[in-house]
């Protein structure tokens, strides 16, 4: 195993990788932008290297500076996590050429899966079903002709894309030109590649993906599925394993897992990866969507049900170790659900909310996991994704996991920005969700007119507000004995108080 790892990322996933490294005895170096100088990841890493200004184009996307930082700090490997350079084959190649280990698949595999049209051709050849589609070479007229052939509704997608960027549903031929233009613009910005393609759109769709792990010795396993159908703006907000759809359909699960392995094998895949499928809930047909050649945001639900630490396995595989288990050793036990807590306003089209986090208190309870990169005093800024935390509950059954997750959401204190916590609680309570009838349109269908709860102000809130103002005012009547419980605090006011002590 290597001794020192550079983490080419930020936020909660950088923190999560640091924690994995601590268990393995690996030292960590994080790179950071000026906006993240005081971040939790920088605090927890063994060393931290400033690589630029807040815009990602001047820091987290600067491959040259990241590799230089790895060299200077004596790292042997680079973990890209997700987003930023994680699916950039050129970066993986540069890391390799600098004599460092890239914690991920080969540049060739990234490349092959990165261009959606090439990926589709490859997996189709490997016998994996794909959606009827048009690969998007040509002029507007070509797209229009192809769209008519595919039939509406259809999806416009970025050829180099991922994470929903540049993606649009088109239900009417008249909307096609505007959709193509907007998608091309977004794709160009996000991926520096504005090529598009078209695809059949399934109305009652479930998004189900299969996690795979492959070592450098020819061993490959799957770690079962995750269902990620609960999405808003085409981005996942609730993910779970097992899929409620597959619980009663073990043969379909097996077929999908085998298809995922074939897809990964078709590009000689190594390390952790995820094969995404769309499942037609009416017919049970499944189609390959794309392969994410990296760790996923939602990897914790797989970790909860399989007991496999995916990040530690990524590091072991990158270091050349063989997989420590075979397929038959793996299991999928209990039920895990993750929800992503965002600084956003679900009643205002999920607009991100920026601001200072005045108070953050994560919940603590058995079998609750909180992955977060921020704490009280940090800010949600315009520069990065406004995710505050991932909250994961694990229990024996799905209903218990839902209750556990809801209790943890209720206890999560985040002050200073609008969050989607009340929204997530309402989604967990929604009858279709509770029955496991989760399709990708559930949010837009059932929550289009959602409004946050607006409870009347209880007297206890006024009492708390008045007390805190009174304490802050430092009224002389408050000069009781100094806080017995906190006798030393360099930042406590001299007239610290404690009554009833």
């Amino acid at each position: 195993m290597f001794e020192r790892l550079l983490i080419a990322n930020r936020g909660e996933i950088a923190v999560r990788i640091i924690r994995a490294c601590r268990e393995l005895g690996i030292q960590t170096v994080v790179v950071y932008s000026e906006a993240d100088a005081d971040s939790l990841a920088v605090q927890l890493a063994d060393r931290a290297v400033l690589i630029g200004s807040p815009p990602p184009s001047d820091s987290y996307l600067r491959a040259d500076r990241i590799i230089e930082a790895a060299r200077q700090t004596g790292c042997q490997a680079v973990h890209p996590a997700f987003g930023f350079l994680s699916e950039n084959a050129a970066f993986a190649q540069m890391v390799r050429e600098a004599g460092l280990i890239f914690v991920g698949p080969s540049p060739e595999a990234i490349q092959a899966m990165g261009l959606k049209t090439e990926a589709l051709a490859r997996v189709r050849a490997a016998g994996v079903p794909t959606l009827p589609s048009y690969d998007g070479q040509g002029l507007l007229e070509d797209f229009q002709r192809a769209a008519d052939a595919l039939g509406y509704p259809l999806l416009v997608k970025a050829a180099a894309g991922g994470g929903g960027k540049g993606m649009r549903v088109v239900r009417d031929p008249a909307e096609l030109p505007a959709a193509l233009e907007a998608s091309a613009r977004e794709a160009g910005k996000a991926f520096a590649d504005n090529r598009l393609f078209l695809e059949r759109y399934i109305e009652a769709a479930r998004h189900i993906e299969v996690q795979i792990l492959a070592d450098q010795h020819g061993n490959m396993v799957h770690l079962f599925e995750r269902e990620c159908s609960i999405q808003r703006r085409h981005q996942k907000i609730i993910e779970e394993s097992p899929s409620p759809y597959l619980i009663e359909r073990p043969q379909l699960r097996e077929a999908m897992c085998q298809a995922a392995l074939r897809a990964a094998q078709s590009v000689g895949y190594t390390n952790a990866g995820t094969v995404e499928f769309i499942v037609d809930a009416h017919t049970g047909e499944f189609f390959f969507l794309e392969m994410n050649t990296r760790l996923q945001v939602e990897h914790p639900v797989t970790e909860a049900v399989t007991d496999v630490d995916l990040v530690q396995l990524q590091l072991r595989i990158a270091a050349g170790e063989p997989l420590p288990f075979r397929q038959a050793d793996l299991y999928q036990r209990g039920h895990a659900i993750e929800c992503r807590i965002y600084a956003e306003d679900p009643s205002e089209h999920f607009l991100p909310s920026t601001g200072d986090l005045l108070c953050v208190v994560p919940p603590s309870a058995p079998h609750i996991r909180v992955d977060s990169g921020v704490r009280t005093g940090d800010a949600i800024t315009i520069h990065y994704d406004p995710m505050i935390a991932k909250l994961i509950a694990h229990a024996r059954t799905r209903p218990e996991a839902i209750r556990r997750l809801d209790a943890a959401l209720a206890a999560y204190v985040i002050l200073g920005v609008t969050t989607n916590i009340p929204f997530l609680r309402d989604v967990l309570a929604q009858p279709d969700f509770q029955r496991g009838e989760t399709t990708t349109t559930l949010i837009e269908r059932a929550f289009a007119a959602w409004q946050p709860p607006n409870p009347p102000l209880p007297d206890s809130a006024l009492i708390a507000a008045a007390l805190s103002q009174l304490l802050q005012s430092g009224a002389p009547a408050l000069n009781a004995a100094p806080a017995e419980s906190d006798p030393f605090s360099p930042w406590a006011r001299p007239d610290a108080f404690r009554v009833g002590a």
Partner: protein
Amino acid sequence: MEFRFEHAQSLYSVKAERDGESFRVRIGERVYLVELVRAAGGELVFRLGDQVLTAHIGRAGETLHLALGAQQFKLSLAKPSVRRKSAEGGSASLSASMHGQVVRVLVEEGEVVRRGQPLVLLEAMKMEIRVTAPHDGRVVRLLCSVGEVVQRAQPLLELAEL
């Protein structure tokens, strides 16, 4: 001491004073005897009869953000003043819903627009945000330009009702 808070257009007056080891808090006709249990790191714990309640409090400018159980409240500390809604009829300014950069301005001054029509494209957090017309109207004045970084609530244009 007396404190005044505004919440959801209502004004509240709360009197709080020390009473031995406790605090006496009066809200209107109701009087509470409150014992402070703990106050540290944004957390305020107090005893009210046989209940011990936990509040988390943060302050941004003149706003108190308060969490109590699973509920959150924003209380304004500002001197009470009747909030004026945008003048009826006439024109009203349309503001940015968040901090971001203006990517495109899709209308011109004087143009007549329909309800729901996109007027300005903003980009924030790598997402495109579309500012649309809240009603049919005429663009009276443009207050932003492409490339400009705008703050939340900054006016982007003035829109007159037809």
